[in-house]
């Protein structure tokens, strides 16, 4: 027994010594650390040959030139394309997130059809048959009961969609009106031409910005930021007039807080002062009308110091100046009167079609559309008016009219109205009435979730398309969207779907004479296609519209009051655009969400920005929970005390509060659109609401 115990001990000691003298323990120690360096659950990206492929980004209407870095057939990074007319190497964070969108699990991976309340996979063949049967079935009787909601895209495929609806026989094509659409009408009315504006802010010496977020996504976002930097290099002076200090106000030389809605008065007030200093040709007709805008009155209405107004006027009159408008990113239409007032300043500055001024750009004519052959149904329908009447076919107006209209089929492309439109509860209700909704979305967004048929389109890195580049770029042109990635899922280009469908509907085929999408593009671009594909872009050198007339228009409104009863809703809620939170039809990808400040989202909570003075009056402290109520809705958020906002005004970021998409986005913050209502501009008919009255209650 005793021997056994001690022998056992000896055996153990021997084994210990032997083990220590063998590689086993040492190799195990080494290998276990190497194991920790190569854990099987940490991905190892596959290596291969690097290549770059050029394209144009279509995630917003900025249309930057991009190049995709690829390893074999994987897109690993999106970069800005150097020397491109729009962005010259720079790129915004949404564009950079392209690969995340391309490989996102929230993408719609194949056509889907709602069967017994659930979206189920179907083949493309079935999907197109389904759509074509649906459309054919009602074409003879009520072709005008089919409507389209499309994003504000200037791509060839969107034009095909417009053509599709026209050839089908419905005038009901709606799009979201932007500041450019309003400005176009101003140009039409004041200069008598059909043209698009562009603003040479990079070459102006003095910029009066009426709330335009030059670096917050306004115009072509990257291009505008570049223009701002050039301006900084040239020591330009930028004056930012708005109630909340946006990023643009931050880089501006001067932030001028203004009482919400009084921009028209200020613009004319400045104009009145300018005219006193210099009297441009033809401005005589303006003079009597400007008499209404005495300095002291303007100061009182706008809440801006009279001396400051005089100073602005003086600077404006003595420099190479430009005035710009279109609030925030300019993704919503503005008030016609306000735009006229601002454009009046530009006329006074004598900068129209001049270097550093407002460029009036005519259509390039690069797209060579053949005459469309329409059958009798289409011809008859084209005489009809759209649901919104003869005004701009704004999606918001359409949605407002929807409750009293019957629409049989609604096609939705490049937009997510259930999220992006004001008062989404009302939109949802209106949508419920429509028996058949077709979504052409790449992602399972809010609208796609309730669609009856989903025809998933390619994302920007898979698309083939041609876009016309106009937004705020000094030289307009067209860009070629090349597919830089293989298709990741069973999706198609919008143009492809439309052409295939059109061919199967009686009477429509003639309007779509091309064999396929590819031949359609080459037919429309003609001999320009080859150089376009090679260069990626064709610039329109001769772009300025000629023979402009000049005409001043008196405003109908002097102050644009935000919707709501001042007694019940004492505060003004301003939704703001942040370039870090894409708020269009594409939800913010994880990269973008990651950059958002903890004063905008914290956990799942959203915030409302309040001046401490206002907060004190309401008895609120930083980070306390509150309920924001407007006439359209209410939501729960937290307070973010900020010195960067006027007392009496509160602000909330756009782009949050999604219910669809993935865990990286859904459920974070609130969708400020739910709180907003629409205000139809009396002239343009577009929604020109930029704020709403609200009240804030402690929770």
């Amino acid at each position, binding site marked *: 027994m005793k021997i056994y115990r001690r022998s056992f001990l000896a055996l153990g000691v021997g084994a210990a010594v032997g083990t220590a003298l063998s590689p086993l323990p040492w190799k195990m*120690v080494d290998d*276990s*650390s190497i*194991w*920790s*360096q190569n854990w099987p659950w940490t991905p190892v990206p596959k290596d291969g040959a690097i290549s770059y492929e050029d394209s144009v980004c279509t995630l917003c209407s900025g249309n930057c030139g991009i190049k995709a870095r690829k390893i074999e057939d994987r897109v690993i990074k999106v970069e800005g394309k150097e020397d491109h007319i729009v962005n010259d190497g720079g790129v915004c964070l949404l564009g950079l997130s392209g690969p995340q969108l391309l490989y996102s699990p929230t993408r719609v991976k194949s056509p889907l059809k709602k069967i017994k309340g659930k979206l189920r996979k179907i083949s493309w063949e079935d999907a197109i048959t389904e759509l074509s049967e649906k459309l054919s079935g009602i074409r003879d009787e009520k072709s005008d009961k089919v409507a389209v909601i499309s994003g504000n895209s200037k791509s060839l495929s969107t034009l095909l969609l417009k053509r599709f609806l026209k050839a089908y026989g419905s005038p009901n094509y709606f799009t979201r009106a932007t500041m450019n659409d309003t400005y176009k009408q101003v140009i039409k009315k004041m200069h008598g031409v059909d043209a698009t504006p562009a603003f040479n802010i990079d070459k102006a010496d003095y910029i009066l910005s009426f709330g335009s977020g030059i670096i917050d996504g306004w115009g072509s976002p990257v291009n505008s930021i570049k223009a701002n930097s050039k301006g900084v290099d040239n020591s330009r002076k930028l004056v930012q007039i708005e109630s909340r200090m946006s990023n643009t106000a931050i880089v501006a030389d001067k932030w001028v807080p203004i009482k919400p809605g009084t921009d028209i008065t200020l613009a004319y007030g400045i104009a009145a002062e300018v005219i006193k200093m210099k009297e441009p040709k033809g401005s005589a007709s303006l003079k009597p009308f400007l008499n209404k805008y005495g300095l002291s009155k303007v100061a009182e209405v706008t809440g801006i110091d009279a001396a400051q107004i005089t100073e602005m006027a003086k600077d404006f009159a003595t420099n190479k100046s430009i005035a710009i408008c279109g609030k925030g990113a300019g993704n919503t239409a503005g008030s016609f009167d306000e735009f006229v007032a601002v454009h009046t300043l530009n006329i006074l500055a004598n900068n129209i079609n001049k270097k550093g001024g407002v460029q009036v750009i005519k259509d390039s004519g690069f797209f060579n559309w053949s005459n469309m052959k329409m059958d009798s149904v289409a011809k008859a329908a084209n005489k009809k008016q759209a649901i919104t009447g003869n005004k701009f076919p704004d999606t918001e107006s359409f949605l407002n009219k929807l409750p009293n209209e019957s629409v049989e089929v609604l096609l939705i492309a490049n937009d997510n109205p259930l999220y992006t439109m004001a008062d989404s509860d009302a939109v949802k209700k209106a949508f419920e009435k429509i028996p058949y909704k077709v979504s052409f979305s790449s992602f399972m967004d809010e609208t796609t979730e309730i669609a009856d048929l989903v025809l998933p389109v390619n994302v920007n890195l898979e698309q083939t398309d041609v876009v016309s580049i106009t937004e705020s770029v000094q030289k307009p042109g067209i860009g070629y969207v090349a597919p830089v990635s293989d298709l990741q899922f069973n999706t198609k280009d919008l143009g492809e779907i439309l052409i295939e469908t059109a061919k199967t509907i009686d009477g429509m085929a003639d309007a779509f004479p091309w064999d396929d999408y590819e031949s359609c593009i080459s037919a429309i671009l003609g001999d320009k296609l080859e150089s376009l594909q090679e260069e990626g872009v064709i610039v329109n050198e001769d772009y300025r519209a000629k023979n402009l007339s000049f005409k001043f228009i008196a405003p109908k409104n002097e102050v644009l009051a935000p919707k709501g009863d001042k007694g019940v809703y004492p505060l003004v809620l301003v939704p703001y655009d942040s370039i870090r939170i894409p708020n269009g039809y594409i939800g913010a990808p994880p990269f973008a969400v990651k950059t958002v400040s903890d004063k905008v989202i914290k956990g799942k909570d959203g915030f409302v920005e309040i001046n401490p003075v206002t907060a004190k009056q309401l008895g609120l402290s930083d980070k306390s929970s509150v309920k924001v109520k407007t006439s359209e809705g209410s939501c729960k958020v937290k307070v973010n005390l900020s010195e960067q906002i006027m007392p009496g005004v509160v602000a909330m970021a756009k782009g949050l509060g999604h219910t669809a998409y993935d865990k990286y986005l859904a459920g974070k913050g609130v969708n400020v659109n739910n709180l907003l209502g629409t205000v139809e501009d009396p002239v343009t008919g577009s929604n020109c609401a930029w704020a709403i009255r609200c009240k804030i209650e402690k929770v």
Partner: protein
Amino acid sequence: MDSALIPKGVERCSLKRFLLGQAIVGAVVLWGVYAMILCWMKGLNQTNMNDSFGFALWIWADLAVIAVGGGAFFTGLLRYVIGLKDLKNIINYAVLIGVCCYGSALLILAIDIGQPLRGWFIFWHANVHSMLTEVAFCLSLYMAVLIIEYIPLLLENRQVDKIPFFHNLSHNMHVVMAVFAATGAFLSCFHQGSLGGVSGVLFGRPFAFREGIFIWPWTFFLFTWSAAACGPCFTILVTKITEKITNKKLVKDNVIDLLAKISGWMICSYIIAKTIDTLYWAFVTAPHAGFNVMDFYDDNFWAHGIWILIMEIVICGYIPAIILLREKTRQNQKLLWTAAILATIGICLNRWVLVMQPMSMPVMTFDEWVLYLPSWQEIATTILPIAGGIMVIAFSYRYLPIFPQEQELNPVED
């Protein structure tokens, strides 16, 4: 039942009672082990540390246990190298406390690092300029020394001692113990210092940064000095607590008094040096970096207020120093208790301040103060070694002849 294992001539409580007590402590240990496993399996997301608070509760606990464990090396130094014979009556216990403290420190370090499997890189790929490397080397070497100092005690267990080899081993180790003790003191001096250096060299963190000599900031020397000063107080404190729990006098008053007196002189000299250091830091080092010393104490008064400095230096520094220096006061049991507790709190507070405040404090002008509250996993894993230490001490006390004077002071009548 276990009477064969209990040293001769002493009285121990019943095994049942002992095991019951151990079970309670053992439950705490299990809780700690559970938290430890969570940290190892799931990673450090189990803690409330963050990118601003990369060093937090654990590092403080590390520094604190090592500081209070300083009693081991300093008593060892006094006993074996300087030759204060009287201290042989407490050296065993000082070593035992040291083993617990250093064991705790190593265990906490093993949990604290993000990649425990690669912990050995600190030795293999050592960067000799890093204070942490020095800490790791000296800490593990000194741990080895402490174990060597503890082994003879283990071998003196009644049953083990019966085996001639172990008996001889124990005897021989006793013979050369002075060499080990001297090496231990050398190592300990360095790593106590390098622990001070850990924050003292952070020239990017003006709160922690100190001037110094060559690569050694003042905190290097202050840490060694303070550990030597307050460590014995902790030894006294633990001895006193043990006496309270066992309801027995275990060490003669003259031994405690000697240790207390030495500790008093050490604390006194340390706190003067600390005061000078603080003044130099407040009026030279901090302004040099563009700071007013009051910038260092702000935001949340209870977490980072100036009281913490006053508490550390005046209440937990000068007061125990004064108590321990005067024979009359240090021989008053209540005041001795007070001094020992205050000195222990003081040194822990010092380590706390040097770990937490630099993390909390904004350095860039646009930074903000950061508040940090440890998660339960951190607390459990920090309590784990304390509970473990209690168990080790309890077992050792029960089965090993820790206190040479115990029999004499508590004659067994049977």
